[in-house]
């Protein structure tokens, strides 16, 4: 059964978008399909893997478990909006420096979770970093260099 589209007004990476969407559209599909922001990935169907993590009003959330209509009025930051122009965010830079990514598929979610963590807990130690990553799966790196990268980023002056 078809259901009427609903208006959605959101600001994504600083740009506002006013549009209408089907109620069932998930935020991740809205970002990927409607806005063409394909850096946010879908890695599972049970809200486990974290590849779809974005910032919704400043909080890291799994965009596969949020309806686009729920985000009406929100400010969203995706991986595409994290760097300051050509200057990588300290977490992005640290991921390259510490080789915290291999295939890159989990990376946007990892980086967004890490950036949120360091906003909320700049002093996070290894244990806090690992706890914060419980909702982000990686199959390539064994997490070793991801944790190292986040630690490195935490030590950058901001």
């Amino acid at each position, binding site marked *: 059964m078809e259901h009427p589209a609903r208006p959605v007004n959101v600001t994504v990476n600083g740009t506002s978008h006013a549009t209408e969407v089907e109620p069932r559209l998930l935020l991740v599909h809205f970002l990927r399909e409607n806005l063409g922001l394909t850096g946010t990935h879908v890695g599972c169907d049970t809200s486990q893997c974290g590849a779809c993590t974005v910032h919704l009003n400043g909080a890291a959330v799994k965009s596969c*478990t949020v309806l686009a209509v729920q985000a009406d009025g929100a400010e969203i930051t995706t991986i595409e909006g994290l760097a300051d122009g050509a200057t990588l965010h300290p977490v992005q830079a640290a991921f390259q420096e510490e080789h915290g990514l291999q295939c890159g598929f989990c990376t946007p979610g990892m980086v967004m979770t890490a950036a949120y963590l360091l906003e909320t807990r700049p002093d996070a130690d290894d244990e806090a970093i690992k706890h914060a990553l419980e909702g982000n799966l990686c199959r390539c790196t064994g997490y070793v260099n991801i944790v190292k990268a986040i630690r490195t980023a935490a030590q950058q002056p901001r």
Partner: protein
Amino acid sequence: MHPASFGYEAPASLEEVFGLLRQHGEDAKLLAGGHSLLPAMKLRLTQPEVLIDLGRIPGLSGIRQDGDTLIIGALTTHTEVSASETVRNLLPGLADTASVIGDLQVRNRGTMGGSVAHADPGADLPVTLTALNASFMLTSAEGGRTVAADDFFVDFFTTALEPHEILTAIHIPLPAAPTRTSYAKLPHPASGYVVVSAAAALTLDGSGACTGARVVLGGVGGTPHRATGTETALNGQALTPEVIAAAAERAADGIDPHADSYADEEYKRHMAAVYARRAIEAAAARA
């Protein structure tokens, strides 16, 4: 995975919600944080006709102390609970519980009320809230009623909530005497849900003797399980290691846990005692 199509309502007041509930009846489901409902809808395990999003209704979230009661709005997120100084100071066991639900992103969206109303037998909060003797404010067009946690959780995914009611707040009594709270959890290695968990709330007198104990197990049945044998064994006792160990041994009395692909019944029974002991020890160790 895409959920089946549904209609969406975003009422701005409880009155509107009551009207929508009347209109749609059982075809409608209430949406809070969505972290129980949306995953089930994506797998098409549930296909509601209409979602009523409670997220635009003012006044449903927040944490405040009202005399000897802590009141937590139903839409308060797990992150807000675990980070709350008030909760950390008064009920550290609740803060600890909120901090081990799901994962960081889930805690940023998932809500207290959503978790309680969903009544997943693998959820954390029902266990701790039962130990804390919480009661739930259920609001309807006709008014409201409060139901104690002991009576609220009826069975797997089943609560005392009537279809026309909304869980709006959680009330937790703050006893005059010092009460120590804790939560110990054996998480499933894949889902992070509870395999077995235990929450303890121990009230102590000036001498350190336990004057009131509530010890509740999770994961061992359809609802949180009061380990009454354990509670009895603690009451009136100084919390020595021997007393705690003996009391914890009784935690599995009368439980009938279900085996799953990870843990069999016997293991869960044993873990009930182990985690009850860990929860009691952790509570007893709190300053």
